[in-house]
């Protein structure tokens, strides 16, 4: 057998070799002082590795983890309690309204029904209008930005690059000054 490689020694020390290979290693170690020395070094290392201590587990670790896991039962209970509180509040509020206004229960239910449907209708219309306005605004903004880009590109082809850069810088400074000026006026409470 050739001299042992570190991998052979580790496999031997970790009982990962079959019996024939173990016998070969044993026979070689008996004959080769160099490999015996290398073997002793790795065995010392494996002994040192076995001394690596466990880290201390805090005694309340499991409890801390469990406390962060909501129990299925408690979430059901929470849901039930919330439903009961909500329904009770609704009935109590309705009863108070009926007593204070002197309305009949049937009249109250009809009015409540009308009010609910009216709210749903108005809210839907408002949402639709808002969505249309937002889409229109975004469309205009996109067109404006596109046209501005084209204009700038055209402007860039007409004049020399350094003049173009100077113009852009001037416009940026102007924009910054305008923003700063409007901010100052706004903070003073004056109208521009």
């Amino acid at each position, binding site marked *: 057998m050739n001299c042992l490689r570190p991998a052979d020694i580790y496999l031997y020390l970790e009982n990962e070799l079959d019996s024939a290979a173990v016998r070969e290693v044993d026979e070689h170690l008996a004959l080769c002082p160099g490999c015996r020395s290398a073997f002793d070094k790795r065995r010392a290392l494996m002994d040192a590795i076995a001394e*690596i201590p466990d*880290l201390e587990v805090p005694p309340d670790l499991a409890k801390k983890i469990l406390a962060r896991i909501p129990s299925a039962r408690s979430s059901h209970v929470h849901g039930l309690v919330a439903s009961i509180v909500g329904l009770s509040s609704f009935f109590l509020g309705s009863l108070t309204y009926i007593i204070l206004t002197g309305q009949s229960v049937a009249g109250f239910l009809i009015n409540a029904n009308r009010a609910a449907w009216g709210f749903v209708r108005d809210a839907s219309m408002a949402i639709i209008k808002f969505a249309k306005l937002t889409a229109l605004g975004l469309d205009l903004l996109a067109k404006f930005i596109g046209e501005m880009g084209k204009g700038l590109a055209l402007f860039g082809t007409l004049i020399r690059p350094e003049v173009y850069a100077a113009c852009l810088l001037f416009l940026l400074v102007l924009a910054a000054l305008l923003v700063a000026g409007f901010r100052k006026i706004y903070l003073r409470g004056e109208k521009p």
Partner: protein
Amino acid sequence: MKTPSRNKPFSSDSVSKDEDNALVRRALKGDRKAFEMIILRYQQPLLNYLGRLTGDREQAQDFTQEVFLRVHSSLSSFEPRFKFSTWLFKIASNFMIDFWRKKRISAVSLDRARNDEETLLSLQVPDAGPQVGKKYELAQIKKRIEAALERVPKELRELFVLRHINEFSYEEIAEIKDLPVGTVKNRVFQTKEILRGLLEEGT
């Protein structure tokens, strides 16, 4: 994980697998006691793993909590044909990968490690040298090996910890890390050679 193990509270792999699967089934039905049993079984190996990778005990305790929470929320995806311990450590390993990515810790080049694998396997053992093993004093060894381990690149250290602290088999580590068994073995051997070098440096 192999028996006998300092981290392993089981009598045998098949028994522990059946017990784990039964605990998972109970935990999935909302049995908190069953999940507590799972925590008690795995908190020590998991804390050791995370502690050796972060090098910070308090952070390791926080991470242990986070990993168990991830395990709890993913229990329904556990497939009983796999070992629970390897599934749990796969979650822990992914957790550490996410953590390192967030911390932008530059990954240690594994290309070099791969190139070194061949070198390591063909490395011939030097002739007679000082018997360093005999110089070790037990009390000092613990400190020195812990310090040396912290200097090992994280990717190599992880495989070493899974093998020699958590005592997983090479096949189980290959499953956890999605690597070929041969690669795992070579990298663990390489880590041990690095550790040996670091320990000898200090003698």
